[in-house]
């Protein structure tokens, strides 16, 4: 039984958290929700929100710019997260062995993740610069023509993906490496005694046991990937044209450049829905891999 005073104490400890949650999470969410079904107008009386029903959503589904931003975001997330996972897994498997300088490599691999996306954006923008970048210099020395990594509509999105992969592969590596370290050595040794080849060992033991860590890493990185904005803003500003405009950048432009708060909020909410639906689908599909049966 919990006494009255203990309950009171509990409430007292919880209240600040609840207030903070209400102020910084629930209120903005409700405000955004009101904007999504309304229109925001500033006049002498301050901010007024009038309800307009589904008008913002109708506009959204008919907006070619929204679908372009959606497609750009999906392409970046799928390509970048896949590559990050494969590279992160490869690096984790390499460093799971006893090799010289393992500690130094581990630290080196983590450096990109410690940089701010803005700094990473500037760095890669310089690297990809068609006029003065080092890649252009190398290509010219080899007698090859300069490539507009960021200025050619076709290529710009790949440059963004490469940058994202460079920065966030260490995140995958970190989680997968921890997952590998947690696999009981008995299983591996038993498989070796049974004569399993390296591939069989990976396919039948390591990979299945790594599934929970893999699911968590892909889910977290995927959810973060949907929100990509800073590197794109610095590297291409969403261009050339709209070839690298992500959903977040589109929402920012509408909300804070065109100052259309309601439509900007609708875009933000659509991103929230997309991430939520994506996460639910992914978690549902991955359930079958979570509890593995070692064959």
């Amino acid at each position: 039984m919990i006494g009255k005073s203990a309950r009171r104490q509990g409430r007292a400890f919880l209240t600040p958290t609840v207030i903070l949650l209400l102020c910084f999470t629930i209120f903005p969410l409700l405000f955004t929700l009101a904007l999504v079904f309304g229109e925001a107008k500033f006049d002498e009386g301050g901010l007024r929100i009038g309800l307009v029903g589904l008008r913002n959503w109708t506009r959204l589904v008919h907006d070619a710019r929204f679908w372009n931003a959606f497609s750009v975001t999906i392409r970046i997330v799928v390509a970048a997260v896949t590559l990050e996972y494969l590279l992160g897994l490869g690096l984790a498997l390499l460093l799971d062995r006893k090799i010289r300088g393992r500690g130094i490599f581990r630290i080196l691999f983590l450096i990109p993740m410690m940089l701010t996306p803005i700094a990473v954006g500037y760095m890669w923008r310089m690297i990809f610069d068609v006029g003065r970048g080092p890649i252009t210099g190398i290509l010219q020395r080899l007698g090859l023509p300069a490539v507009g990594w960021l200025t050619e509509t076709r290529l710009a999105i790949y440059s963004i993906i490469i940058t994202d992969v460079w920065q966030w592969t260490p995140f995958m590596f970190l989680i997968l490496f921890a997952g590998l370290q947690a696999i009981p050595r008995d299983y591996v040794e038993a498989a070796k005694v049974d004569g399993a080849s390296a591939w069989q060992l990976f396919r039948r033991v390591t990979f299945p046991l790594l599934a929970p860590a893999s699911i968590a890493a892909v889910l977290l990185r995927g959810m973060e990937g949907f929100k990509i904005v800073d590197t794109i803003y610095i590297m291409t500003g969403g261009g050339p044209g709209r070839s690298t405009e992500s959903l977040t950048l589109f929402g920012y432009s509408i909300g804070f450049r065109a100052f259309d708060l309601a439509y900007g909020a609708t875009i933000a909410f659509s991103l929230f829905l997309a991430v939520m639906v994506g996460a639910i689908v992914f978690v549902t599909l991955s359930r079958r891999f979570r509890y593995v049966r070692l064959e």
Partner: protein
Amino acid sequence: MRRIAAFGVLALLVVGCAVALAQTRRFEGVTITVFTQPPPYIAKPVLMFAPDWERLTGAKVKLITAPWGELYPKMYSSFALGQALFDIVIAPAAWLPDFAEAGFLAPLDELIGADPYIAWGDILPVYRDRIVSWAGKIYAVPMDGDCHIFYYRKDALENPEYQARFKAKYGYDLPVPPRTWKQVRDIAEFFHGWDWDGDGIINYGVVEPRRYAGQADWCFFSRAVGYVALPDQPGGLFFDPETMVPRINSPGHVKALEDYVDIIKFGVPGMLLMDSGEVRSVFASGLAAMAIDWGDIGVISDVGEESRVRGKVGYAVLPGSTEVWDFAQGKWVTLAEPNQAGYLAFGGWVAAIDRNSRNIAAAYDFISYLSRPENSYISVTTSETGFNPYRASHFEKLAGWIGFGFVNPAAYLGAIRDTIDHPNVQVDLRIPGAARYFEALDAQLALVAAGQKTAKAALDEVAKIWEQITDELGRDKQLKAYRLSLGLPVP
């Protein structure tokens, strides 16, 4: 008796000193907040002059900043919510109608009239009478005079050998400075892709911003103005001043946009993603033969520590066109001389006061202090302030410009003055919602520049969106505002 007289004199001195002190430190204990973009550009003069003003008045100045993209919403929401978070906003002139029309700003007519230091008559008429006024009242004080001018490398365009080669190739003398956009195109092509300044680095024809949200939209209008702004047809650049129907998709605008895209192939590599800040650095690094910009390239080229073009830059009013779209006749007309109407792109930065500010007198005093002739002269002749000349006295005293590092200030100031004083100078869009109209255009310009849309299709789309914005904001209200901004009678 002597003792009484001495005491009287002493008392008078004490009272006099007290009165003087009270007058000089008349805002003791007051803190005013100034809101603008982060230093150095625009905020630097605030930081330069605040300490002196604080010493003189006893007040404190608190500078609050936000990135360019967040200035407008933060200013607007602060005004609209009535919180007076900022006593002073230093904002683009184009936003003044939005704020003034909504009743957010304190009228300054009386304060300016009673101010013995501001020398209001010294401010050039176009800034004094048009840029900071709305519906017959003054709502701001100019801090900066903005117009686009044309820059070119004298060592390239004036080189006799290159001139001979140019004539052999194009069949006419290389014009210095070029007077039409057609000439600019030919010169850009001629100087593109070879080392014409002999420094071992490949040079290019032009550098102009083409990045979305990188101030490229003003460059588009700088090109359009010569094609669409006939002297006797006000409003050619934006809307029909009788109906508020957009003129943005006229054949003149389409031609300007085609030029705007065509010149990219003679631009510095990567120009497609450059904003105006990068354009300045690139021009000062010596890579390009020509550029369009506000006064900033002039400053960075001659004064910038890393400039490689000091003393090599020529200045001119914007080129134009002999073929001009006549809105009255609905057809192209051919002029004997190129139509080189100036364009007050952006219109400069102005300082205004929140109507709800509790410190209007102190806020005005600080604005006046920043703008008075001797201080503003220092601002416009100091690097990284982002402020360009806007007072007659700024153009008259060359000593400060030479001290600043300018090699040929008379030519630089001449090009700016010729633009501002041009009888057909076009003022930027100054109506409520200006930022939204420009955003819609900017988004389409980026598509055309990237080859994802044709000029005509993009401008048709812009016209459609502009119509929607006008309807949403109220056509009659917008028409009235537009006519006011053009100085036309309002029915």
